[in-house]
């Protein structure tokens, strides 16, 4: 949100909003049932319908949904309606996973996604590889949220952009760390209620402000059809394939985010979970769709004011125009800014808690100190959160100041391509008893190597890999094909293999 000059009143409102989260963290600590990992990472006996719905919503819709989706829609036009479909596909994937996983999680007291894999496959190599994939994907996601925090703050003060970015990242990350260390999952879920609530209201306000400022959607569409007809035309064949690829890649990949799986564990009852999921099915229409319409409106009315990567700031520019026109609009713009902050922080805090739970339980307790006490592990989890916040916040600030982008960070941008490779273990493994650990591990490893190898393929090299890369389907989809064949085929071969006489 660039160039939104907020006054003192607006700054006080934002400060109270942020401090209220630390207060909620303290309330979360007061509500602690016991000093255990289950209590800290999952919230003990779990949360009911209302909190579950808002924590699912706030966690799933990040700052990228508002800033990135509107920016992309301003670049490509109505074609970015694909985002509405892949956000719906995430909920459809839960349909495959949630009912059985919830029952198993309650029965066997799961805390991390790897707990399910350990229960189902009892294979340490598989546990390790799957955990490393999830940790890698989340580290990238968390870094992206920290960067988004800095960007959101950049245009609010008169400080130089780099200084504002650094302060934004540092202050918001510390607030997040404070409430999470205090109250664990409860603090994260309860702050999500505020953040998710503000986010939901913010999107409705955003739509009304846009229509009031720029006229009806039909006016926008007609204007865009004259100015840039490509943004109104239906996608061509390759783009249509890309829609399908996005729907599978993100629909399945994002449903397998560890923080999403842990919210299934954290449901207090099956009734609360299925009601929350039923409402979540409609959220793409009230969130992603509005972001797309905002982007399309920007494309029609802001013309050449923004181009390339700076189009991610379209919302900031639109809000500044709204702000300049009325005092009422000014107040609502502050609310939308609060929604953006809430969207970023609610996703980031869930990532952080999930990362800390996997490193503590799956890696440290799983491979280093299996006999460590619950108190020690919970305390370690908080230290791990602190280390992650300090190191990744420093990295985000360093990367912003220097303009350096590490190859490792670029590689991890393929996070969905990587996360997709754990899909057979979860989605097939939960329904088919015949799936064996060895083939699943081999398939996962092969899928990861295959997906990552696309990173070094030159699009124009004319090779087989280049053809696959430019086909419209993401590398992760091709890799999942290889992965699935090895996992399922290998399991079938092992099942049919006759017993050798002793």
């Amino acid at each position, binding site marked *: 949100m660039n160039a939104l000059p907020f006054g003192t009143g607006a700054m006080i409102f934002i400060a109270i909003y942020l401090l209220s989260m630390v207060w909620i963290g303290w309330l979360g600590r007061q509500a602690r049932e016991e000093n255990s990992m289950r209590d800290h990472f999952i919230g003990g006996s779990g949360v009911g319908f209302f909190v579950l719905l808002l924590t699912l919503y706030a966690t799933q819709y990040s700052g990228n949904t508002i800033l990135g989706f509107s920016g992309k829609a301003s670049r490509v036009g*109505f074609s970015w*309606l694909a985002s*509405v*479909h892949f956000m*719906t596909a995430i*909920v*459809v994937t839960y*349909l*495959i996973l949630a*009912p*059985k996983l*919830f*029952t*198993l999680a309650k*029965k066997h007291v799961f805390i991390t996604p790897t707990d*399910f894999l350990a*229960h*189902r496959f009892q294979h340490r190599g598989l546990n390790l590889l799957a955990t490393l994939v999830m940790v890698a994907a989340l580290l990238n996601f968390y870094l992206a949220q920290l960067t988004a925090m800095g960007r959101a703050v950049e245009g609010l003060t008169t400080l130089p952009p780099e200084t504002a970015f650094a302060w934004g990242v540092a202050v918001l990350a510390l607030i997040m760390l404070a409430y999470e260390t205090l109250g664990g999952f409860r603090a994260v879920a309860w702050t999500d209620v505020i953040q998710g609530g503000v986010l939901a209201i913010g999107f409705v306000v955003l739509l009304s402000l846009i229509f009031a400022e720029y006229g*009806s*959607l*039909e006016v*926008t*569409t*007609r204007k865009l*059809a004259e100015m840039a*007809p490509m943004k*109104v*035309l*239906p*996608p*061509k*064949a390759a783009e*249509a394939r890309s*829609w*399908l690829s996005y*729907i599978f890649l993100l629909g399945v990949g994002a449903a397998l985010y560890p923080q999403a799986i842990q919210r299934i564990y954290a449901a207090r009852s*099956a009734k609360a979970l*299925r*009601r929350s*999921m*039923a*409402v979540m*099915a*409609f959220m*793409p*229409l009230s969130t992603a*769709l509005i972001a797309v319409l905002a982007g399309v409106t920007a494309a029609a009315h802001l013309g050449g004011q923004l181009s390339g990567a700076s189009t991610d700031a379209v919302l900031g520019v639109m809000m500044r125009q709204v702000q300049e026109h009325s005092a009422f609009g000014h107040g609502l713009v502050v609310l939308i800014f609060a929604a953006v902050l809430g969207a970023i922080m609610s996703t980031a805090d869930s990532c952080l808690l999930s990362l800390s739970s996997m490193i503590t339980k799956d890696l440290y307790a799983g491979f280093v100190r299996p006999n460590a006490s619950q108190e020690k592990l919970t305390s370690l989890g908080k230290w791990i959160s602190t280390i992650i916040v300090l190191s990744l916040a420093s990295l985000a600030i360093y990367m912003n100041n220097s303009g350096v982008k590490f190859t490792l960070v670029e590689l991890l941008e393929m996070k969905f391509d990587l996360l997709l490779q754990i899909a057979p273990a979860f989605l097939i*493994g*939960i*329904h*088919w*008893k*015949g799936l064996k650990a060895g083939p699943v591990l081999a398939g996962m490893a092969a899928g990861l190597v295959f997906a990552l190898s696309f990173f070094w393929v030159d699009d124009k090299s004319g090779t087989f890999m280049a053809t696959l890369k430019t086909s419209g389907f993401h590398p992760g989809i091709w890799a999942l094909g290889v992965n699935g064949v090895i996992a399922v085929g290998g399991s079938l071969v092992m099942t049919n293999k006759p017993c050798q006489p002793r």
Partner: protein
Amino acid sequence: MKPTRSYLSPWIWAVYAVLLAISIPWYWPQEVGTIVLGMPLWAAVSVLGSAAMSVFTAWLFLQRWPDEEDDQA
């Protein structure tokens, strides 16, 4: 493989496939065409297809969720 569970019956996935085939705009001519609900017709059909998918998914969660899952996995 084991028989498909009631909430994962083949007909459910057939409905999703049909809705997806309608929603992904692969079959439209390259023209702006009529404007419906403020959007080009192809975009409006895609949004309505997505809305239908949401309704169907919500219905499945509310009506087809198994009462008691056994520990098969």
